[in-house]
């Protein structure tokens, strides 16, 4: 699968490494070249400096032939804008984006943008962990 990832933070770089390791063709974008130090030394994918809400940068990253696009920068608004560009202009079949703000997350889900809210996911995981954890007595 050809995957374009926007945002080389902790999650973006980890995802890129895992996908590349699994034999997928990965291109990762970030506006800051320093961010690419998070990638493993033996990363087999491509890293490109560029802004994912710029159509030109997305084209350079091979968005036109991509099977999937993931927007995972720190900015909710940048993520949803890039996701919508990938979906509506480049017709990428699988598009996902991260939105921290739970309210915005709900709205974009209704608008048909595939989103994951790390705020909601993390609080659910903690919630389950707290309820299921064995009680430790000292």
């Amino acid at each position, binding site marked *: 699968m050809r995957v374009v990832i926007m945002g080389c933070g902790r999650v973006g770089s980890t995802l890129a490494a895992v996908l590349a390791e699994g034999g997928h063709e990965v291109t990762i974008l970030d506006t800051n070249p320093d961010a690419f130090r998070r990638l493993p030394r033996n990363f087999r994918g491509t890293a490109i400096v560029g802004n994912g*809400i710029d*159509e030109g940068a997305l084209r350079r990253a091979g968005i036109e032939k991509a099977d999937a696009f993931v927007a995972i920068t720190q900015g909710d*608004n940048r993520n949803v*804008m890039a996701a919508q560009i990938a979906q*509506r202009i480049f017709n990428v079949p699988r598009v996902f984006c991260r939105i921290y703000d739970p*309210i915005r997350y709900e*709205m974009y889900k209704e*608008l048909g943008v595939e989103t994951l809210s790390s705020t909601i996911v993390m609080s659910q995981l903690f919630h389950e962990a707290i309820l299921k954890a064995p009680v430790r007595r000292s």
Partner: protein
Amino acid sequence: MYMIVVGGGKVGLALTQALLASGHEVLCLEIDPHRCGVLTEELGSVVFRGDGCEAATLDEAGAARADVLLAVTGDDEDNLVACQVAKHRFKVGRTIARINNPKNKTIFQLLGVDATVNSTEIIMAQITQELPVHPLVALLSFSGMGLDLVHVEIPPDARVIGQKLSDLSLPSGSTIALIIEADKTVRLATPDLALRGLDEVVAVTHPENEDALREILTSPA
């Protein structure tokens, strides 16, 4: 009318002042507390601190009863999201976004923003008045209809000089709306009006016909 301005930078401040002066109810949303203080000194009780992209802030700001939302921050993605939240959450009738990167015009239109104002194009319009070239300058886009409002200056040697508007064969969907003569007289485009050199023409056109329209209005005799 009640208008919400998202972003209290230089553009937001000037826009809020202009809208207040024309008698509208206006609220300017600004996220930065320090900037809010500056704005309040300047504007008074029409400044509201908060993130204009957040539904909770827009709710408190009364977006549900707003007639217009104008998103004029320096970041296109923020302007897009503010307009989308206003439109889909609060059913604001008209959303207008400032776009800083001209390439974003298409995606804004595709995603339901009613009009985009492009600072680059406006600056280009200013520059072209002082340069001996005559490109068509897009002033405003009406996205729902796929139409642009454009502006072109008739060169002194243009073929169309002397022709009546009714005699021009314009591309389909293109209509001339206004003529601004060299002495700044503004005339509605009536069929009998004849074009003169240095007239400025304001027209409505489909984006794909812009080139054809320019060709007709500017090519030399």
